[in-house]
């Protein structure tokens, strides 16, 4: 019974959020921005529903469910709530609840905000689906949906810059999604199943496969784009044009964490693959240092936070890539710590912007005196971010240091990783100070008041949670260790505030000292750093590439822009010639035909009569001459038809030729008497193509016709015409009996031609173009 054993929980959770998203626009009409509280309540309920599944996940008995989707293709909606999924689901739901409660006060009371709420709920549902997916294809589905949702959330705020930023975000993350698609398909091809647990269980086979390097690179691309790693980081700062709750939720706590989730999910695939560790440590920590050193130069608090996110995601990616017990444990802890402090900071920035009308630290000052509670929240979050004990950020960062210097395989990597991690963290300390000092320090310049408690409460809650979690890190320990068990099968290491006098503690101390030094030297540094503009800017490179693609497309499109039929016909002729020659070369040796039978000599006069007539049609500038010659060609052909035993054809040919000539002459009444002059260039090109076609047609006819006896079907018609169809003229019986369908089509063609021609000829003259 699926209900009783909780198997229905994951699908119900995801489904209920999608249903909520669909209902939101209608609900918003009634309750307006207060809807945020309703949604927060829903998310809390959903988080509570997760508790039993969480308990089972700790016992290594994850709740799984599977519904067929496309069984023939092996797609099923497999969902799975193991410890990793529970950890991330809890983040998505709890932070979702907090953010919705915040949104209810952030938005203006005047309008309904149905679209924003709907998109945000849709996003949350997709994100939840992503982290509970037990099937690679399902994961891919939700992965792409988060990209789509964030596209709408970023660009929906209006303005050309917003829609450009949204485009960048969508194209970068969806590009990564396509890499993930390729990786998933390769994994499915290698393992034979899309079930994530099965894929992970067959890690050996994956690593042994020749496709493994491709899979690794594709996964890395997916992670790097989604988690905004260098050099794909640029979409994230651009995405800050979205409303602040959106930034707080998507671009700190959830969307970008999807990449980290994927890395944790695939840890077993890369067990013992040193190159993977090297790649992620270098990419991740480069991103961490780059992001932090960019953040420290920002004046816009939101941009600062965006680069801070880039930096922290780099650190997380490096950790998750290392994938040892310590590293996975540290990643789990840091994901939570980062989500708490980053959400706090975004929310506070939103509050400051609402109250003070700016988020530029050059315009803000002294807010600690007028907004003490906001200052407390910022301070706690900043301390956690800077890695000051006893906050959660300190614990997770120290665990991270410990993991970096313990990277297996030895060599230079632990050293480099340790140094880069400490450097990035020292910079983090410094920009944490910058946030606090920039907005809350200094003299009071604006007469402001603390905002409504309900607006502040969510930020206070998350910042306090960062403190509590640091002191009581043991609360997180069982879940984090369950994650490590799933990933690496070991659980002997613990999260703790105090591990004793370890090298990591020394690194933490160094970080704080270095950070403090940076803070002290900030004015001198600022002058120097501020002047140096970044030489490469991802967003502008992207926009340039986009413009280039459009230009290349326009160039390709020129082939379909000309009004002259010549190029289109020339392409068809060239393709035909090419294909015919290729086919002749390919199959020419093996025609499988009998000996060639030459035609009788009496055919030649027809050829001699016809050739000059064709030449006149081609060369004549006078229309009447051309038409007269065309008639001559027709009569020559009629003669040929008579010669080869087709008198019916000869008669029809004469009839049709006469009609054609009559029609041409009718049309001439509307047209000048002479054809336009042919430019020499066109004559040469057309002549060359014509010669090629002529030669090939002649050779083909010569080689392929007249090399077999009468066909079976010919003998049948000659035999059966009278008994079966009751006619002596065999050609007629074919037309009206054996192949009457062809004749019906032929009549349809004539009727349609008449219909179309009448329409054209009688079209209203006044529609003449100016």
């Amino acid at each position, binding site marked *: 019974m699926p209900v009783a054993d909780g198997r229905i929980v994951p699908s119900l959770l995801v489904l209920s959020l999608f249903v909520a998203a669909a209902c939101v626009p209608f609900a918003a009409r009634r309750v307006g921005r207060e809807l945020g509280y309703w949604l927060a309540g829903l998310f809390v309920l959903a988080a509570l529903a997760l508790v039993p599944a969480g308990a089972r996940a700790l016992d290594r008995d994850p709740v799984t469910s599977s519904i067929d989707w496309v069984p023939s293709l092996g797609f099923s909606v497999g969902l799975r709530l193991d410890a990793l999924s529970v950890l991330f689901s809890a983040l998505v739901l709890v932070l979702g609840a907090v953010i919705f409660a915040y949104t209810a006060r952030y938005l203006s009371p005047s309008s309904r905000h149905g679209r924003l709420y709907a998109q945000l709920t849709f996003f949350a549902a997709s994100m939840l689906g992503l982290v509970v997916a037990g099937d690679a294809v399902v994961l891919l589905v939700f992965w792409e949906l988060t990209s789509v949702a964030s596209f709408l959330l970023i660009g929906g705020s209006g303005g050309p810059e917003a829609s450009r930023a949204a485009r960048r975000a969508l194209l970068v993350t969806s590009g990564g999604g396509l890499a993930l698609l390729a990786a998933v398909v390769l994994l499915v091809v290698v393992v034979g199943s899309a079930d994530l647990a099965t894929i992970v269980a067959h890690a050996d086979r994956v690593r042994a496969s020749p496709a493994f390097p491709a899979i690794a690179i594709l996964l890395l691309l997916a992670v790097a784009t989604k988690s905004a790693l260098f050099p794909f980081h640029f979409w994230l700062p651009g995405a800050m044009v979205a409303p602040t709750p959106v930034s707080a939720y998507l671009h700190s706590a959830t969307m970008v964490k999807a990449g980290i989730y994927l890395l944790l999910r695939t840890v077993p695939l890369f067990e013992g693959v040193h190159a993977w560790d090297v790649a992620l440590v270098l990419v991740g920590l480069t991103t961490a240092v780059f992001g932090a050193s960019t953040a420290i130069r920002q004046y816009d608090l939101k941009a600062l936070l965006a680069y801070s996110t880039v930096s922290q995601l780099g650190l997380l990616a490096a950790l998750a890539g290392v994938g040892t017990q310590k590293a996975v444990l540290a990643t789990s802890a840091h994901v939570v710590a980062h989500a708490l402090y980053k959400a706090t900071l975004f929310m506070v920035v939103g509050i400051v912007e609402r109250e003070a009308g700016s988020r530029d630290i050059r315009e803000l000052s002294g807010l600690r005196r007028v907004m003490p509670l906001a200052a407390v929240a910022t301070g706690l979050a900043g301390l956690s971010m800077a890695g000051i004990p006893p906050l959660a950020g300190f614990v997770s960062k120290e665990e991270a240091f410990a993991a970096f210097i313990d990277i297996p395989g030895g060599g230079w990597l632990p050293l480099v990783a340790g140094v880069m991690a400490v450097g990035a963290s020292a910079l983090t300390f410094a920009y944490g100070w910058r946030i606090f000092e920039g907005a809350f320090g200094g003299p009071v310049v604006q007469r402001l008041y603390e905002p409504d408690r309900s607006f502040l409460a969510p930020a206070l809650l998350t910042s306090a949670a960062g403190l509590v979690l640091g002191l009581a890190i043991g609360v997180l320990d069982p879940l984090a260790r369950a994650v490590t068990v799933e990933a690496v099968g070991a659980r002997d290491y613990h999260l703790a505030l105090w591990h004793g006098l370890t090298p990591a503690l020394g690194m933490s101390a160094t970080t704080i000292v270095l950070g403090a030094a940076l803070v002290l030297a900030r004015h001198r540094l600022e002058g120097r750093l501020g002047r140096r503009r970044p030489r490469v800017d991802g967003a502008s490179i992207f926009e340039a590439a986009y413009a280039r693609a459009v230009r290349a497309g326009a160039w390709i499109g020129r082939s379909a822009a000309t009004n002259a039929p010549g190029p289109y016909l020339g392409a068809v002729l060239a393709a035909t010639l090419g294909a015919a020659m290729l086919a002749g070369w390919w199959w020419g040796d093996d025609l499988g035909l009998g000996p060639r039978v030459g035609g009788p000599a009496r055919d030649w006069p027809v050829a001699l009569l016809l050739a000059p007539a*064709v030449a006149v049609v081609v060369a004549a500038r006078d229309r009447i001459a051309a*038409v007269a010659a065309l008639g001559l060609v027709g009569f020559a052909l009629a003669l040929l038809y008579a010669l080869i035993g087709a008198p019916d054809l000869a008669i029809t040919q004469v009839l049709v030729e006469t009609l054609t000539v009559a029609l041409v002459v009718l049309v001439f009444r509307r047209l000048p008497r002479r054809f336009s002059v042919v430019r020499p260039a066109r004559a040469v090109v057309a002549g060359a193509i014509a010669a090629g076609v002529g030669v090939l047609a002649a050779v083909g006819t010569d080689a392929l016709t007249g090399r077999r006896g009468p066909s079976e079907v*010919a003998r049948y018609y000659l035999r059966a015409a009278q008994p079966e169809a009751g006619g002596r003229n065999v050609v007629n019986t074919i037309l009206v009996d054996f192949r009457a369908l062809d004749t019906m089509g032929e009549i349809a063609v004539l009727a349609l031609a008449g219909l179309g021609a009448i329409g054209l000829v009688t079209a209203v003259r006044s529609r003449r173009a100016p």
Partner: protein
Amino acid sequence: MSAIAVVVGVLAAGGTYLILQRGVVRIALGFVLLGHAVNVVLLASGGLQERGVPIVGASSDPADPLPQAFVLTAIVIAFGMTAFLLALAFRAGELFGLDDTEGAIPPDERVDRDLDEAEPDGNVRGGSETQVPGSEEDP
């Protein structure tokens, strides 16, 4: 090489040359020649050794009747096509004063874009209610 193959080659070359020229009429003439070329190939495909008229009892070596039937169908179809092309040429003559559809108006002009969707006076379209059904081509 047989005379038939030469006939096909000449017709195909002449037709190809003409369809690459300016002006719908010359293109139409080109397609007439190309159609002839294909018809002769079709006839040749039955083998041209037997040349008796395919009428029961009329000949001891009757020709393959099937290609003849094909060609009869093809001739009529080609005539339909030619007639339509000539109607296009006629219309082009009305619109441009010559049958040359090249460059008569720059390719990006949008003046007569979907004229049947515009109101008769060419004003901005405002929904399709104002339109007279069928007005676009009934004289």
